[in-house]
């Protein structure tokens, strides 16, 4: 073969470069340790490397997840263990406390400790880890349990604000684990629960609406049970969890540890249809009112809220006040009150300034300037000589010295009259009524419960000879108490012969519009008399004198559509209302009571309802027991007649309407009565009463304290010897003092607290009357006015004294001097301590629940630990695999390198020999 000189060089160079390439690669491998740089170096290994790397990354993440889970679980475990300790102590205390030989003081001490345990458990139940509430389910940013405080400042119950959400952790491929315990399950295992009746899974087929814990729900015939459940669950304000049981029943579970679910049909009989309105459910919901009954005061304000800072202007302003009549000892004075040019930053500033100037002008204690808050000022007269009348105080006009008023408009005292005193209620003629409309802010809410703007409520004034303001106040307060919408929200007070209506909720967020009065509901019916005027609340509009706190009546502008027909009664239509024992006030089956509607036009449903209501109001048997209400459906107004009392005990027979004039009911469109809210039969829905840790603690504490005593029903009271005190429905308790008496009719739900309030009402509000924890009623007189001739005694329907009761109040008699105290004998509600013993069972089941939760928590942590350990082993394996896959064997690389190095050396030395010589070298 021929070899060309170029070939020798080029093939040598080629060989050399390939050796060098190999060397370079080996050198790179030894420097980086990596088997490959680019996918092309080893496509399969690169892909495997990515795979292993990913597996490692995820494995690390899974371990991190597991660590986080362990963290959470162990935190939860600590809290639950702590709760367990509290519960053990609770058990001991309960056993101790159920010993009936303990003195009230001993029991109080135990109760205090139980209360501390309870507070401690609440704190634990609201444990949060890094700001996340661990017992709240998915609602981790919401405090798990909200406290419902009672008026005494102690926690009455707690409401769960979390949910049943299970928070998972990925701890491996297709492996997950829940890392939370739902507070509902642990602390609220069983709350007040209603189980409805069997229903199909298809459309419900019935319609109507109902109210549950003051939230409105509506059911249409096409709705399925599951849709209703979702509707209820979506409304977190209702505080009720709806569940559908396996056999298609609706379960309503209260989110509160102790509270029941308040249910009320609004239209139709949905609750009965669902089977969730059980025996006594409504009654449980409506615990008897415990508000103070009366207090009094009357007042007049500026017409509109003033806006501060209020500027008087550069030249100053003059307010002209004319005071006369009884308010000024029958001397009419007209004085100019000069206000300097300045700006008032607050109403208090203006009030002080006015008071000072007025006192200078008229003298002390003639006109009182009150700061009512909210930018409202009030001018009040003092009684100087007899009854003050409407015209005693006037604002505006010209003063005696000729000064012209400039300020009254600015200050809103537009020719304001003096405060009306109700000394003479002669105008009240027994047919008086007015409506009271409470606004949104007057509604007292508890822990985020939504406020409700209530509809106007009709009030009646009983006609009686010698009616005093105190009588009216007492009457009004009774009506407030009897009306579940007003109960606890508004009260009447008598002060120096004047009547004051005020909302119990006070403070800066309550506005003037929160308490509106008008002469009649609907206004279509002209008031028979000017009831408000007679009571001093109302001033004649025609005189141009403003009447600030009293709004104009609300007129319904809606046409009266032919739902029940545009009623034009040609004759005096009469029908009668027959109330049964469960709806009547005294629990008796009443004879039918006639309602007489006079011939005439009733252009609105409201007008008709008002007329019927006025008739009802005139009948003591019907008053507060039944009412006519306007219901609007599909744009049409209807007048319904419904009982005020509700509940499953109510039967259809509890409300019957009968024609007196033939066809009267048909004319009015009133058909067969439906049972309002009541079930036809008892026990249609099953109630599960609260049985949970929180409820047990609260109840045990309450039983020990005797907090429940005020709520004890009078008819269920027992003496120390566990004998009935003999007081029954319909009995009357007569409270006498200072030569007069008041009577309280005992009804089914009249409580010890009601009695205390009635006593305070009669004896005077300067006295302190309260129900003590042991069921005694204590009367204390802090004033310097002694109360004379106190006597409290009960009579049955036949007027015979009820000795058992009277025995209790044996010591409450005679005169009560300054700083004197009277205490009734101790009463017991039946089975109070027996209940306490039963509670031990609840505590035990609570402890059991906690123990099973603890073991569950432990086993979950174990699983997590196992996962972490497994992951660690896996990680090592994976790392080994990755190392062998990704990294070169150094020994091999170095061997190969030295091999290649030798080859290179050999090639170079050979090359140097081959390349050098040529024939030319040897030619001479």
């Amino acid at each position, binding site marked *: 073969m021929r070899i*060309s000189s170029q*070939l020798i060089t080029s093939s040598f160079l080629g060989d050399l470069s390939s050796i060098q390439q190999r060397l370079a690669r080996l050198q790179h491998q030894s420097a980086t340790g990596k088997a490959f740089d680019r996918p092309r170096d080893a496509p399969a290994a690169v892909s495997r490397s990515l795979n292993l790397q990913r597996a490692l990354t995820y494995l690390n993440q899974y371990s991190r997840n597991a660590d986080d*889970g362990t963290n959470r679980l162990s935190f939860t475990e600590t809290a639950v263990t702590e709760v367990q300790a509290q519960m053990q102590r609770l058990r001991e205390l309960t056993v101790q406390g159920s010993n009936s030989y303990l003195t009230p003081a001993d029991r109080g001490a135990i109760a205090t400790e139980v209360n501390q345990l309870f507070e401690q458990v609440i704190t634990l139940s609201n444990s949060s880890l890094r700001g*996340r509430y661990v017992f709240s389910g998915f609602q981790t940013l919401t405090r798990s349990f909200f406290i419902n405080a009672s008026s005494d400042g102690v926690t009455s119950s707690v409401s769960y604000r979390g949910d049943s959400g299970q928070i998972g952790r990925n701890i491996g491929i297709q492996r997950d684990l829940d890392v939370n315990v739902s507070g509902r399950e642990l602390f609220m295992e069983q709350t007040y629960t209603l189980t409805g009746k069997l229903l199909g899974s298809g459309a419900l087929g019935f319609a109507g609406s109902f109210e549950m814990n003051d939230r409105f729900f509506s059911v249409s015939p096409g709705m399925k049970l599951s849709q209703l459940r979702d509707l209820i669950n979506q409304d977190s304000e209702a505080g009720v969890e709806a569940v559908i049981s396996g056999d298609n029943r609706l379960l309503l579970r209260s989110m509160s540890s102790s509270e029941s679910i308040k249910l009320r049909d609004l239209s139709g009989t949905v609750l009965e249809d669902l089977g969730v309105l059980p025996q006594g459910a409504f009654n449980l919901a409506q615990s008897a009112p415990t508000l103070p009954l009366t207090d009094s005061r009357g007042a007049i304000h500026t017409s509109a809220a003033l806006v501060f800072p209020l500027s008087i202007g550069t030249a100053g302003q003059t307010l002209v006040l004319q005071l006369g009549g009884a308010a000024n000892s029958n001397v009419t004075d007209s004085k100019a009150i000069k206000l300097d040019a300045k700006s008032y930053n607050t109403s208090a500033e203006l009030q002080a300034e006015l008071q000072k100037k007025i006192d200078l002008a008229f003298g002390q204690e003639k006109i009182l300037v009150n700061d009512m808050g909210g930018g409202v000022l009030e001018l009040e007269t003092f009684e100087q000589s007899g009854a003050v009348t409407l015209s005693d105080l006037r604002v505006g006009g010209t003063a005696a010295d000729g000064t012209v008023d400039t300020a009254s408009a600015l200050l809103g005292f537009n020719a304001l009259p003096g405060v009306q005193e109700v000394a003479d209620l002669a105008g009240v003629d027994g047919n008086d009524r007015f409506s009271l409309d409470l606004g949104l802010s007057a509604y007292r809410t508890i822990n985020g419960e939504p406020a409700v703007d209530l509809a106007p409520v009709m009030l009646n004034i009983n006609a009686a000879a010698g009616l005093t303001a105190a009588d009216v106040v007492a009457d009004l307060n009774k009506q407030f108490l009897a009306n579940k919408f007003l109960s606890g929200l508004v009260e009447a007070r008598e002060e120096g012969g004047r009547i004051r209506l005020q909302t119990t909720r006070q403070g800066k967020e309550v506005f003037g519009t929160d308490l509106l009065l008008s002469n009649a509901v609907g206004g279509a019916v002209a008031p028979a008399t000017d009831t408000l005027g007679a009571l001093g609340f109302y001033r004649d509009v025609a005189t141009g004198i403003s009447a600030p706190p009293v709004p104009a009546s609300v007129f319904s502008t809606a046409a009266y559509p032919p739902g029940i027909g545009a009623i034009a009664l040609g004759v005096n239509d009469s029908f009668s209302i027959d109330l049964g024992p469960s709806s009547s006030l005294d629990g008796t089956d009443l004879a039918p009571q006639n309602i007489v509607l006079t011939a005439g036009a009733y252009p609105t449903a409201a007008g008709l309802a008002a007329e019927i209501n006025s008739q009802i109001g005139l009948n003591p048997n019907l008053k507060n027991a039944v009412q006519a209400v306007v219901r609007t459906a599909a744009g049409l107004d209807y007048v319904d007649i419904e009982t005020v009392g509700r509940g499953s005990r109510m039967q259809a027979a509890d409300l019957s309407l009968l024609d007196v004039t033939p066809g009267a009911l048909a004319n009015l469109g009133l058909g067969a009565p439906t049972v309002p809210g009541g079930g036809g039969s008892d026990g249609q829905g099953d109630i599960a009463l609260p049985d949970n840790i929180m409820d047990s603690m609260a109840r045990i504490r309450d039983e020990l304290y005797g907090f429940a005593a005020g709520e004890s029903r009078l008819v269920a009271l027992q003496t120390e010897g566990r004998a009935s005190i003999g007081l029954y429905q319909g009995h009357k308790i007569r409270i006498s003092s200072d030569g007069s008496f008041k009577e309280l009719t005992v009804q089914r739900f009249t409580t010890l607290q009601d009695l205390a309030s009635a006593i305070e009402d009669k004896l005077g509000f300067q006295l302190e009357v309260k129900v003590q924890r042991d069921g005694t009623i204590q009367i204390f007189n802090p004033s310097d006015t002694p109360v004379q001739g106190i006597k409290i005694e009960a009579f049955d329907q036949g007027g015979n004294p009820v000795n058992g009761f009277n025995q209790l109040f044996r010591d409450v008699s005679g005169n009560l001097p300054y700083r004197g105290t009277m205490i009734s004998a101790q009463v017991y509600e039946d089975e109070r301590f027996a209940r306490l013993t039963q509670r031990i069972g609840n505590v035990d089941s609570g402890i059991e629940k906690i123990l099973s939760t603890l073991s569950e928590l432990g086993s979950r942590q174990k699983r997590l630990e196992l996962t972490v350990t497994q992951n660690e082993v896996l990680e090592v394996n994976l790392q080994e695999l990755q190392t062998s896959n990704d990294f070169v064997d150094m020994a091999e690389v170095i061997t190969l390198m030295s091999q290649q190095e030798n080859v290179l050396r050999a090639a170079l030395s050979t090359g140097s020999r081959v390349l050098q010589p040529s024939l030319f070298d040897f030619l001479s």
Partner: protein
Amino acid sequence: MIRGAFLGLETARKGLMAARAGLDTTGHNIANAGTEGYSRQRAVTSASSPISLPGAFFTLRPGMLGTGAEIISITRIRSQFVDAQIQYEGSASSHLGMLSTGLQRVEDIFGEPAEAQFSGLMDSFFNAWEDLSNDPESLAARTNLREAAQGLTDYVNNIDFALKREVEDINTQIRGQVQQVNTLTAQIAEVNRQITRSETSGARLSVKANDLLDKRDQLVEQLSKLVNVRQLDSPDGSVNILMDGHPLVTGGDAHELVLRSKSADPSKLVLEFKEGNFPAPLHSGEMGGLFELRDVQIPAVRDKFATLITAFTNQVNKTHQQGYGLDGTKGRNFFNDTQTRSATGTLFLPAGTTLDTSLDSLGITSGDFFIQGQRIEITPEEVLPGQALTLRGLLQRIESASVDIRAELNLDAGAPRIEISQYNPAYGTNSLALVDGNSNFFEISGLDKAVVRDLSLDPPYDNSLSNFRLSTSVLNSLDAIAATGDDGLGFPGPGDNRTALAIADLKNNAQALFGATYGEYFESTIAILGATAQTAERSEASQKLVLQQLEERRQIISGVNLDEEAVQLIKYQKAFEASARALSAIDETLDLIVNRMGTVGR
């Protein structure tokens, strides 16, 4: 017949001339020993025509008297066969070389295996969801997730940008190479003309323009490195250069190539002949490699990657839509979803087909096929007569397999046909991926998968990569990130992490894409890229070896061996010396005759 007295002189002169030519040629060879493309030359001499010499003695046969040597030609020692092979293999080698370096750049763009590349970023993305599932209320976890997702989208956008820039670079190179090809063909044509002129102008045919031939061979070889060419010799000494039968050079004429933009995609320039507007049949050489990179390899990788991203986007979005953000709003996308084109594939079914028609009555067999990467399976039981799956069931199965697919029975044209359309815009323009499996559903339903598949491959530069970014809602608000599940009861609560868990779990979805998880699919993408590059690299290496051997072969034939030339030198030197001596011998003979004869007796 009497021989001329000077015949011997003439003979010797010819000998001298021949030796001189031999020396010159050898010298030329030595001088060009290191010249690239040089072929050694040889002076070809032969004995010149003899003179017949009729003998005086009839018994003797008449003799032929030699008249010396003459130079016939100076010839290149070269094998045309080896040249042709070198041209061919050279084309192939540079094609592979270009492919290998090009793929290396693509590998570098993906950057695997290394940290903070796609694989790692996707892991971080999923891990960020895991972290969020551990603490769904936390804004820190949300920030971290958004950063991780942003890192991922940025990376994908960068890949998209880099791949597009790579295509731009390739186009720039192609432009330069077209220029080069045109210059080379023009030069070859010029050399052709020179050779024809010199070889035909000489009196004798044996005149060879050796060095011009070398130059032309070199030009052709250079050309063959760029494009695939074949050389055809013509009798007048010129060569025709053909590209798959289409002439690039015919004699003295060169045919220029041009780049033209023929499709909507401005980056897809097509190589054509300037005259005639027909495409140049390019399949080898550097330029062939560039075109393959641009039109096949890069789109293939890109396509796989885009499919991954598209499926990923849609899966994540689909899952994300199930959950509520912290702000209590549901149904939002996590990634951007702004593409606008959809595609429909249709074909008629037998008349009377309804949704309740069973698969067996349509003749559909069991097996599987893939739609948008989702495997749709028809079990053997489902095509049994009597209990067969209905068309409705199958279409629902197809719809449920992928978020963006709508499968329905279309009766618009009067006859029933199955219509599969892609309506979720996130997939971009080339997004309806129908891949046949072993069920005959596509044939029976007449879904023209070829046409549909074109949709997925044809416009390779869709926007699914560049539009891969976070949705505006997530970008604007961390609260828009949905971690909660949904019970149909509104916002379940800030601690609910079910959607976060579900999205984190998507990484383990073994049926995410063509029966693989996202990670596995990406690995296979990288593995395929690596394997392609490896093949190109290895083929190039072996091709180079072949080329090297061929070049060695050529060197063996045409290369200058200095030792050999030294021997030649000596040979011709001796020949020259001998001829000179012969000349002087004859000279002396003549001298004897002229000067010393006839002087006898003088």
